[in-house]
């Protein structure tokens, strides 16, 4: 295991301290329990948006705390959902009196920990509305299982809901944006290499020199299928197929294409992926209205990519273009 770290037990805390040093104008960190809030939180009279999840997906979620996006974020141990006390304290801290939306990725652990935290916050009289993100089409959806994972759509939901909150939206309105994003977004990912959780010290799975995993999540878990490595274009087609069919997207739809690197993928490769994504969209008569290309929801140093398509209407375009000022996403300000 080769990492720029000091001790496996200090990874999350020290990274938070580094974030604080780099972005004193944007965020305030709290240690033990760990959470990050927007500088000057709470914003009185504004609905707050809180998310969280395992660490190792940076910049998600800590990097999205700031104006027009998250009010607070709760980082768990690497790939392990945060604990109720973190989420509860963070929720209390950012509550500006109009309630708090929890953006929760659909993993058993995340859902349960957020549920417990919401119960605790509600007991204090804080209104909490939780919305679960489950956009990963690699996972078979079924009433009898844990359902689909929450992946790329989370980043988009955080941006868009944050914009709605910043614009004065009510708790119900902000939560509705998260639901709208989740309803209109689909994602799928793949890996060229596994990643290594610091505390584990060895890769979460093994891949041959000629192999890739299709349908992976963001926790270094194995995917839907292992197969021989293919060209970028073929890989994009494999991811785009299930995404496009699932919603389904229809000719004429306007979409935001989010081409995401898993952490160890160079940007030059992501643009090669983007090229094919744009071509497939064109072939299908879909309009590439907005795009986001980069490593925004990662799995440590894993090489690979995920693609998220979000169907956009005027409201979402407006919210997307609204100012955002966080360590990892910034425009309009």
């Amino acid at each position, binding site marked *: 295991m080769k990492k720029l770290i000091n001790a496996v037990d200090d990874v999350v805390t020290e990274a938070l301290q580094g974030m604080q040093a780099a972005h004193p104008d944007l965020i305030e960190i709290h240690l033990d329990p760990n959470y990050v809030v927007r500088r000057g939180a709470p914003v009185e009279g504004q609905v707050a948006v809180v998310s969280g999840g395992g660490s190792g997906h940076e910049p998600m979620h800590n990097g999205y705390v700031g104006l027009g996006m998250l009010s607070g974020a709760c980082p768990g141990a690497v790939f392990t959902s945060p*604990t*109720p*006390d973190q989420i509860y304290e963070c929720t209390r801290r950012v509550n500006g009196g109009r309630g708090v939306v929890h953006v929760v990725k659909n993993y058993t652990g995340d859902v349960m920990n957020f549920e417990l935290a919401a119960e605790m916050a509600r007991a204090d009289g804080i209104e909490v509305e939780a919305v679960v993100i489950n956009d990963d089409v690699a996972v078979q959806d079924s009433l009898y299982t844990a359902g689909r994972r929450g992946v790329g759509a989370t980043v988009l939901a955080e941006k868009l809901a944050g914009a709605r909150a910043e614009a004065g939206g009510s708790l119900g309105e902000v939560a509705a944006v998260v639901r709208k994003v989740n309803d209109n977004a689909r994602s799928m990912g793949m890996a060229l290499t596994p990643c290594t959780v610091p505390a584990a010290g060895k890769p*979460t*799975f093994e891949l041959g020199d000629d192999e890739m995993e299709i349908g992976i999540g963001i926790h*270094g*878990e194995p995917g839907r299928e292992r197969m021989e490595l293919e060209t970028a274009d073929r890989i994009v087609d494999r991811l785009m197929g299930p995404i496009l069919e699932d919603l389904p997207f229809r000719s004429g739809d306007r979409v935001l294409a989010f081409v995401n690197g898993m952490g160890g993928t160079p940007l030059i490769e992501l643009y090669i992926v983007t090229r094919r994504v744009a071509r497939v969209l064109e072939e299908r008569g879909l309009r590439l209205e907005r795009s986001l290309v980069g490593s925004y929801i990662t799995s440590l140093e894993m090489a690979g990519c995920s693609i998220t398509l979000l169907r956009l209407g005027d409201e979402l375009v407006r919210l997307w273009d609204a100012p955002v000022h966080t360590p990892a996403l910034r425009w309009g300000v």
Partner: protein
Amino acid sequence: MGRVMEGEAVDAATLRRWLDVLAARLSERADYLTQLDAAIGDGDHGINMDRGFRAVRERVLDPGNEAPLDGLLKGVGMTLLSTVGGAAGPLYGTFFLRMAAQAGAKDRLPAPELAAALAAGVEGVRQRGRAEPGDKTMLDALLPGVETLERMLAEGRDLASALEAAAAAAEEGCRATVPMVARKGRASYLGQRSAGHQDPGATSSAYLLRALAAAVSGS
């Protein structure tokens, strides 16, 4: 195997021994649990459990802590909730919190009440996780374990041998998760690919009952 002994019960010291044995076992088997989780999950179960029970040792098993029996269990539940994270944190946290609530403020827990407290814990896990037996989760070890305990006690067995049987049943339940296709938790994302692997949570649950058996029989 003996018959039930009149007034047989566990006290806080026994529970502390249980937690201590369990913590040691989880630390010893952390790598193995993590390996099991890497195969069908995200490779952190051993790390998570070890982190949680190291905190239990520090915060709850501290010799200065003179909490009564239910306070002890509640402390364990709260500590696990706030240190384990993931799926196992809320599930094992709930397990101990429900155990504490069911046990109530007593100095000694008679055998049937210990069984009832464990059953309440398992019921808490079932409610919190909304899993069913056969979903390839910790329930597949906990349920047969606690059911066996209750049955043996009802049949008049002494606590030590009933717990021995319960631990064995949990271990069997754990092994039975191997061919299952997961329907809950992270392993469910793998669909059919989850078959052929033992569930990490069922494994740590089997340790839990085995440690209890050891703590009681050693008393």
